[in-house]
Structure formats: C-alpha cells, structure tokens
C-alpha cells in the first residue's frame, strides 16, 4: 500500500528506474509490477533471492533487479 507520507526508494528493474516505498518486500515489488512472485525468479545484484524469503526480503535503495521468467522448452 502506498501512502503519501511513504519514503520512496529508487531501484532498477530490468534496467529501468522504479520507485517503491521504503520497507517494501521483494514479493511486494513483484506484485507492484504485475507479477506473481510464485511464477518468476527474482535476481538482485546477480544473485537469485531464495524463493522462500521473497515475502520477507526487503528492497534496498540502489538494488538492481532482473526478473527471470522461466522457460521450460527443449
């Protein structure tokens, strides 16, 4: 939930600037950009955030995120 008094922090998602309220979790970030955190992998600064921690891991100012959509073809 974004409120007027929230302090916003700037991050990049897939090379584009993005703002989220300070204290947002990585799972919040996923939903904020329209993605189900269960169905993507979230890479932060070249490390994949462990799936079971997405609801607790906090977004930090300056983080560089890449969203990895899985491919399953062969």
């Amino acid at each position, binding site marked *: 939930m974004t409120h007027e008094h929230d302090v916003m922090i700037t991050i990049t998602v897939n090379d584009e600037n993005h703002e989220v309220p300070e204290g947002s979790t990585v799972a919040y970030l996923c939903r904020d950009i329209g993605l189900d955190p269960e169905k993507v992998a979230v*890479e932060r600064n070249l*490390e*994949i955030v462990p*799936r079971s921690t997405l609801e607790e891991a906090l977004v930090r100012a300056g983080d560089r995120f890449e969203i*990895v959509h899985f*491919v*399953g*073809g062969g």
Partner: protein
Amino acid sequence: MTDLTDAQLDRYARHIILPHIGGAGQAKLLDAHVAVVGAGGIGCPALQYLAAAGVGRITIIDDDNVSLSNLQRQVLFSESDIGTPKVKAAKTALAKINPDVEVAALGERLSADNGANMLAGVDIVLDGTDNFAARLAVNDLCHKLKTPLVSAAIGQFQGQIGTFYGWRDDAPCYRCFVGDAFDAEDCDTCAENGVLGAIVGMMGSFAAMEAIRVLTGFGEEQTGRLHVFDGLKPAMRTMKLHKDAACSTCGTISG
C-alpha cells in the same frame, strides 16, 4: 581405467591435447554413462556432441516419434525418420557418428515411478525435456539418486542452464530455482511459444559441454551458478543461485 587404442588416440586427439582434459580425461569420458532425457531440440545436439566426444554409454529417454515440425531444430533427424520413435532414430544416427558409444534407447516417458530404474547407474543426467512437470520430476529423481543434473531449457529466444547437486548441503537443486508452481504444467512449451532452432542448438551443445565438465573436471566448478542466455541481444547473464532452505525437494526445513 580404459586404455586408449591407436584409433581412439587419433579420433580424440583434439581432446587429448587439451591440458585440462588429456588422455586421462578422455578415458573418463569413455568410462562414463550419461542419460539424456528428451531427444528434442536440446537433446539432439547434446547427443551429437556427447557421442562425438566418446562418452562410452549414453541412455536416451523419450517416448515421442519424429514429426515434420521437429526438423526445424532437431538436427539428428531427417525426413525419412518421420513417424519413427525418436530414440530409435537417434540411436541409428549416433552409431554412424561414433561406434565406440554404447547407446540404450528407452522409448518411454520418464516418471517418478519408473525413473529410478531408468537412471540407475548413470553418472550424470542431461535434461532437455519440453515441459516443467518432466523437468521437476527429473530433478527430484536426480536428488534422490544423488546424480548430478545438467538442466537446459529454452523458450523463444532465451535459454536457461544450470548444473545441480541438490543433495549436497550447500548446493541448490532445479526446484530451488523454479519452485512448486509448475509441477502440473506439462504443456509442450515449444509448440505454444515457438523457438529459434539455432538457439536450441546452442543450449544443447552448452549442456553437452557442462556434462563433459562434470565428467572431466575441466574449468570452473558450476555449483550454484545459473546461466541465462538472451538471443535477442545476444548476451548471457550468470547469476548465483542459493539452496532454498524451504525447498520441497532439497531443503532442510519444511515450508
């Protein structure tokens, strides 16, 4: 360990001269048993390179027949193979490449029930199947059997590949990457989304390279590294993947 014959010294000269492989590494390949699950766009080039490299035993697992729409990317097959089981056509093609290689062709769909028998005694599994349900089943079997898994996947212009040792304390498995949301998704993702044949070929030969890396120990160790190739740019990103403590396959705590 296998002693190399004169013909083998000649055939594998370009491997043997590599300081990271040498005669000892080539002998390891000749003694090795690799299972390739899925003889499709990834499996075909992987099989070609594994056979050419002299991997002594190769088990091919696939329950599908060759169709015309496969030929855009499945380079082991030709028009005369249409309608033939893929494992049979692949076995015939590999015998022409390298008679040193003993090929077992298993024309069945691998499942959690039959998989342990199919993969018994295998040194490494290379997964090039075409859906998440199969990939997760292969992962879970490899974890149970403590067998290294090279998992390579493609979609459209993107490839994703990693080598997994999930039974080890600090090593992730494939499920640590994709989670539990896809166990039921057994659609053929190539048919649904399309794929560029040449990129599948890259990922297949990449997967063969990683299998040979595991068998011979050349270069850098790959535990916990995931490579994502974007053919549109083209560029590859390599990221760290940690074991997820709550992973339902390899985790140490229940989620």
